[in-house]
């Protein structure tokens, strides 16, 4: 059986038969890959702990007719333990995995940028230097941008008129000037749009200093923006833990 090597983040797992699992991976070179990992549910398995969601691994896979088979797995970074230890991180990181899987929907279609973005976001989440909710929002905005749905946080998404503007519409692509404003647009505070811009561009000092009111408002806009463009709601999004103010 021909084999290939790649590095990957484990996105999700499904039970298969007695002791096997189907592992959904976001690989660096082969995009989303679904592979069978045999015997990983047994306590004697050497793979089990390496093929848990959130784990960054080096893999060797054997090409199969329908699904590939994991033949070797080495841990690069076990992000899972630090994520699962904190419920807020766990729910936020789960949304990241589901978003990555949805945005790289075509199996075996390489998406290096989405891959690097996810690895970076998991690393940042585990480092604990920023609020989990902010790391999630920054990831969501940037992964949408990589997928071609970059929101406009400053200039009008419709006519390009320089901001700041007081309207935001997920369907229209972000901030809107008074002339382009569409019915049903949200009217966020100017600081909220500045916060969105900082999340998108990675200005963490500005992000960390944001007021909780603007952070909450931005979170709602990001959630609406992602739901609109993914067309189907994320299952993990409603389970997002409510952030405790100031908690990191």
């Amino acid at each position, binding site marked *: 059986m021909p084999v290939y090597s790649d590095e990957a983040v484990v996105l*999700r797992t499904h039970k*298969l*038969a*007695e002791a096997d699992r189907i592992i959904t991976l976001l690989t660096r070179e082969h995009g989303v890959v679904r592979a069978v990992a045999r015997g990983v549910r047994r*306590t*004697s398995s*050497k*793979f*089990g*702990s*390496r093929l*848990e*969601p*959130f784990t960054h691994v080096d893999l060797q896979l054997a090409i199969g007719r329908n699904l590939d088979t994991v033949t070797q797995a080495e*841990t690069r970074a*076990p992000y*899972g*333990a630090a*994520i*699962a*230890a*904190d*419920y807020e991180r*766990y*729910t936020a990181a*789960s*949304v990241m*995995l*589901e978003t990555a899987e949805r945005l790289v929907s075509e199996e075996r279609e390489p998406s290096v940028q989405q891959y690097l973005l996810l690895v970076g976001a998991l690393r940042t989440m585990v480092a604990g230097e920023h609020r989990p909710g902010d790391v999630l929002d920054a990831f969501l905005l940037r992964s949408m941008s990589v997928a071609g749905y970059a929101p406009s946080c400053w200039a009008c998404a419709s006519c390009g008129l320089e901001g700041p503007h007081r309207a935001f519409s997920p369907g229209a692509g972000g901030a809107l000037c008074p002339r382009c404003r569409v019915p049903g647009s949200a009217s966020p505070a100017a600081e909220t749009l500045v916060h969105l811009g900082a999340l998108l561009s990675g200005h963490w000092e500005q992000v960390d200093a944001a007021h909780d009111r603007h952070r909450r408002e931005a979170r709602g806009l990001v959630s609406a923006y992602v739901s609109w463009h993914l067309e189907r709601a994320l*299952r*993990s999004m*409603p*389970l*997002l833990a409510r952030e405790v103010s100031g908690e990191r």
Partner: protein
Amino acid sequence: MYEGVLQDLIDELARLPGVGPKGAQRIAFHLLAADPADVRRLAETMQEMKAKATFCQTCGNVSQAERCRICADPRRDPTSICVVEEPKDVVAIERTREFRGRYHVLGGAISPLAGIGPDQLRIRELMGRLADGEVTEVILAMDPNIEGDATAAYLSRLLRSMELSVTRLASGLPVGGDLEYADEVTLGRAFAGRRSTGD
């Protein structure tokens, strides 16, 4: 495709978890060749199980009555509760004969990717059982995986404010195994959970 009822049976069997089309075909042909009395007994047992088996109103374990055998047993320690994900975990722990307390079956683990949050589990019922103050020890016996770890972390945070001894089952090296073959995560956990030999 086979004729009529045989194909119907294969289709029904293939809907069961862990049974694929080939496996379903094998079971169907086994039943076709089996003694009619054996097949009747199997069918009756399945119907009887469906009619009689229910879930214990106290702990959520599989039961034939309102309260399961363990909850109804006065010899079990009422001050200690072991929280597990599934009824089959109760059976696994009972086999050890190490635990003499009672159980609480959550019905799964928190998994946002599967759309399962705390509200979908029997966490409210657990809090109800702890409210009267009789229970002094809670043992979290979730699976040692990401969902199990997250569920245990959530429950630990929830129980922190109550005056309880909250512990989690140890993770580490399997008995009878060689240290050199242990993966780094398991070995790391074994290190983190090491204990004094003077105990």
